[in-house]
């Protein structure tokens, strides 16, 4: 029987599907008997989803986009003159 500490150490590989069959089985047995670890697993997974959905939505603001376009144009003109 594995304990909570081992369970949490294994979470990463469990989610990746990288554990062998026996370890997966013992981990899932632990989950059956341990609601706190299920809650931990669920919130561990949610943490990643929430952070990703919040942070990878960053769009370039229009004014920055314009600045970058001008910057690029200027740089190209300089290069063409060379």
């Amino acid at each position, binding site marked *: 029987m594995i304990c909570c500490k081992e369970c*949490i150490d294994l979470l990463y590989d469990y989610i990746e599907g990288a554990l062998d069959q026996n370890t997966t089985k013992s981990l899932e047995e632990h989950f059956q008997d341990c609601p706190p670890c299920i809650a931990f697993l669920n919130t561990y997974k949610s943490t990643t989803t929430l952070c990703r959905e919040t942070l990878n939505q960053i769009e370039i603001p229009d004014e920055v986009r314009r600045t970058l376009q001008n910057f690029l144009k200027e740089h190209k003109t300089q290069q063409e003159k060379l």
Partner: protein
Amino acid sequence: MSFSQQKEDKEIEEALVRDLQAGNLEAYDKIAELYQKKIYGLSFNLVRNQMDAQDVTQEVLLTLFRKINTFQGKSAFSSWVYRITLNASYMKLRSKKKEPNISIDELLPSFNGAGFQQEKIQDWSGNTESLLFTNETREVIKKAVDLLPEKEKVVFLLRDVEGLSTEKVSEVLELTVPAVKSRLHRARLFLRKKLSGYFEEYNSRKGEA
């Protein structure tokens, strides 16, 4: 990402690098089109300021054009782009006063002698749909990520936010795969704990209302 998609991306990258190295100016626009959102997004998550992220993006684009002949193709071109972006972001941060990081160990889970969890764990994962789109939640998430120590933060941003594979992150950061995994796991534990504090309070506030 499928294997054929990966292969296609790799071919596009290689063609782009050849064009750039040959001095083809049209390649500049393609580079900007393909990478500026990634460069801006990653640097914004590190410097957290529009002006600074804009500066970093310009600088990275310029470095890509100027240094393209030093790119030897030992790693993927996109890994090189990410590395340059990280360096430029760190340079930007170094010029600013920095708040001290808190120790990550204080926020890792604690266990009793028998290896059982010591704290009460609340499962807030079912409520995240409604929480996700409030501005308050977004701010809490950004602040929590800002508090991560640098080593863990960069792994978290590349792997979980940008969605790179563990292998690719290890290439960008020149770390072993086990080191990437261990830093990522610590980052997730730290963030889980930070977000738990917030969501538990949020849920009890809602319960009272």
